[in-house]
């Protein structure tokens, strides 16, 4: 009971604590690089794999290598910002420049040879509202 004051005060400054069983990180790690390759390796290859060939389990992670959906750069920009199905949104982790860098990197590597570059200002247009991606934290 001698923790009362302490806990009431602590409640006022709750960190990033998800209601879900989560890792309760006591700091968040912000990404600052705009190097598309580094960003791909840091975020995308978790699912799309280092060679961008995707993977097949009970369902699949799509290959980005040779994927016709990359033809228009605004589509991958939308997906990175907003998420798609089980893929999380990254708008809360990445700036417009970083999303543009990832899209441009993927569209010019892994056997993709698109020549039109996506501008950060194009990403702004597809960015979700903050409200729509505000995770449920208690």
């Amino acid at each position, binding site marked *: 009971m001698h923790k009362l004051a302490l*806990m009431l005060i602590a409640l006022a400054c709750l960190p990033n604590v998800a209601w879900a069983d989560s890792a309760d*990180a006591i700091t968040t790690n912000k990404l600052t690089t705009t190097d598309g390759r580094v960003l791909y390796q840091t975020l995308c290859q978790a699912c799309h794999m280092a060679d961008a060939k995707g993977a097949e389990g009970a369902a699949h992670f799509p290959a980005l290598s040779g994927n016709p959906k990359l033809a228009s750069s605004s589509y991958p920009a939308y997906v990175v910002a907003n998420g798609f199905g089980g893929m*999380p949104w990254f708008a809360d982790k990445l700036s417009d420049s970083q999303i543009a860098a990832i899209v441009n990197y993927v569209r010019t590597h892994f056997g993709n040879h698109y020549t039109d570059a996506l501008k950060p200002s194009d990403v702004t247009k597809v960015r979700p509202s903050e*409200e729509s991606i505000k*995770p449920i934290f208690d």
Partner: protein
Amino acid sequence: MPEHETAATRRQLLSRIGAVAGAGALYQAMTSLGHAAPSDFVNPPKLSGARPGTSVLILGSGLAGMVAAYELQKVGYKVQILEYQNRAGGRNFSLRGGDTFEELGGAVQRVGFAQGNYFNPGPWRIPYHHQAVLHYCRTLGVELEPFVQVNHNAYVHSSTAFSGAPQRYRVVDADYSGYVSELLAKSVNQHALDNEISADEREHILQSLKSCGMLDASYAYKKSDLTSMRRGYEKPPGGGLDGPSVTSTPLSRGDIFSSGLWQAISVNSLLNHQTSMFQPVGGMDQIGKAFQKQLQNVINLRCKVTAIHQDDSGVSVTYTDDAHGSATRVAKADYCICTIPLSILSQLDIQVSGSMRAAIAAVPYAPAIKVGLEFNRRFWEEDEQIYGGISFTDLPITQISYPSTKYFSNGKAVLLGAYLWEDVQAFRFAGMTPAERIEASIASGEKIHRQYRKEYSSGVAVAWSRVPWAMGCSSIWSEQRRKDHYKNLCTMDNRIVLAGEHASYIGGWQEGSVLSSINAIEQLHKRASGVG
């Protein structure tokens, strides 16, 4: 410090603590802030009047699927489960020495743990108020033991505070509450809060701050026997000629507040982390195994579902039967409970309303990483007197959780060496090879425990986004998406109803899976028995 003073101080302390009655007020405050919302489980479903022989096909043999099968079978439904894996249990899962684990991308880990050691890559702790899970543990005879979450002698660590030296949790806990109390007492005594509080309240507040903050008679938090009773002594009290204790010096106020280490206190104080917590003896998968025993001849392993259709007469589910030459088969039933994670279900051909399909596609999954590290000896116990509990750090691993079992035993032991959720580091770890994840976990952990490299024996690193049968750890809802989609996800659609942690307000916990399953079978039963 002279002995008579010590004794007086202790008596003083006890009487002060006795004077404060705060537990009820605390709970009330937390409830009104929305932080204390225990699971709403009261009883398992009472399903009466089932039409004998009504068939239910259940997709997935995690806890949601097995709870549904167990309860429905009990009241006369004909149930069958299709399971993608070669094992039942879903994310209720433990790895032991000799196990093999293959992830997407093809990396295969052979777990090298010693006999009897295990690691829970998925769920690992059960809060006391998760009464639905605890109900089934009790019913099925799953032996539970305490899971230690809060350990005052574990560490809190920041790479940028105190020159990177880990601090004991109790020290930060004591100094943080001490300084907060001291500052607040100062403003009360300087009449800074006179507009807020009455004279009576003023006295109560001062009294409580003195007690809760270990403040002295002049409301100061400083080196004393009193503060050492909470934060620990420089030299603890002993016996005989070694009896006298030496008090410890509090860390500086500025350092405490700038360190950020107080976040660990906040994390530990959450309802979901409060004492008591439990774990099954011998691994979390004991729960799944206990259900499995009740469901002989019900669970069909290695069945990969590809399509889920329904019409007015029933449901038909197409699957590849990998246990029998990968034949394509169609299973038919009157109803279907689908517990397949949305990360997978959103890619399958499922014949439900547009609004349910939209809900299925609206929920992303956290990548989440857990790394189990086995060491040659329990150096955290032997050298540092840490028995269970969690050390928190700002390094990528976020925490180290020590085994809450077999204390003081000799030989190798496994701890949780990393638990990342969905921050940038979690994605980064998921993109590494298992060996790189283990190395990164050791590189972080050795900053807290210098024994790490020397005592390391073996490890296993599970990245949930690469788990072939889950493709993500658990659902991440946003407030907006929950508003738009949650009801559509959970409402039975003709003959199909969904269940799993994703269909609950307790995401990422087994309790959510179980409660959603109970709600699903209640909806199904209502429909099937023509009631309501």
